[in-house]
């Protein structure tokens, strides 16, 4: 068809003018330029640093394994809680943020909670008993960490000591 031949010749491709790239770069306002990209990359890196090292996101895990919980707590809160495996109680899991951990376990059908945080500077090792939501709680400091153990009954406190002292050592106080 003659018209198709004319169209092929009349509409053949052409080379783009050399200044097209310059034209695109002139519209730098709308382009994420290298400089601005680096700023964004730095900002993203800074944000990631904050998230990772300053404001660690809340997290929690479920496990009945003392070693696993201890490892998770250390990783997510920076606290070293010397948990030990014990048959007298059943570990449930842990949750925590930087500098504070809560470890949950059960004695029979009752909940026991161990809260660990960094002790304020200058606090000497001490302990105190108090009532906690109708149950019993005992707090003490040890090696720069503040421990609070909360249980439903005084008897459970004795058992809960086995969280860290599988041999059954009484809590301080």
């Amino acid at each position: 068809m003659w018209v198709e031949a004319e169209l092929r010749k009349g509409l053949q491709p052409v080379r783009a003018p050399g200044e097209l790239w310059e034209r695109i770069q002139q519209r730098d306002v709308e382009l994420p330029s290298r400089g601005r990209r680096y700023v964004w990359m730095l900002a993203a890196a800074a944000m990631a640093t904050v998230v990772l090292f300053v404001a660690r996101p809340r997290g929690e895990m479920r496990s009945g394994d003392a070693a696993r919980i201890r490892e998770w707590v250390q990783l997510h809160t920076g606290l070293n809680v010397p948990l030990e495996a014990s048959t007298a109680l059943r570990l449930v899991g842990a949750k925590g943020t930087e500098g504070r951990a809560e470890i949950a376990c059960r004695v029979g059908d009752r909940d026991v909670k161990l809260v660990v945080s960094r002790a304020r500077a200058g606090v000497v090792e001490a302990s105190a008993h108090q009532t906690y939501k109708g149950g019993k709680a005992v707090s003490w400091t040890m090696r720069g960490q503040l421990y609070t153990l909360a249980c439903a009954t005084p008897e459970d406190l004795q058992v809960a000591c086995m969280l860290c002292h599988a041999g059954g050592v009484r809590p301080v106080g």
Partner: protein
Amino acid sequence: MVLDGNDREVIEGCQRGDYDAFRVLFETNQDRVYSIALRYSGDPAAAMDIAQETFLKVWASIGDFRGDSSFESWLYRIVVNRCLDYRRRGRRWMPFLSGLLDAVVTPAESVLHKLMRAEVEDDVQRIVGKLPAEQRIVVVLRYTEGLSYEEIADVVGCSAGTVASRLNRAHKLLERRLAHLKKDARRSGHVG
């Protein structure tokens, strides 16, 4: 068309914000984009605007390209939309004279022949420029880019049958308007 490893690497580079990768992508596709813009608009200044907007759009949207269709189809869609948008904004198209000017400045024995040829091509471009937008874009994709009916349908977003119908109507219109070229075509053996 399936992306080869290099194309994929370039596109992924662009998606990561690598400006050097974008430069490679531009170099690879600039003639294609500019040709469509020029043949559609018939105006070098408009074609520059369209090509510029197309690449800016590509850079801004490359993150949305998922590879479900070919990169070429995705790029064609952008340039086609830029063409249609540009036209809708009511820019005034200037007569297409670059071919004519090229012929005039060629100092060779065939100046007269080139001048005549440029005049014919200028006629074709001018008359194509008067086609309705939806016919013109399929004509440009068919004869500038050599796309198949199916490929055009994919880019324009219609069926291959619609593409065939638009091309058929365009051919008939162009045959009437380019009738004065038919005699020349006969002489050069293109009558079919």
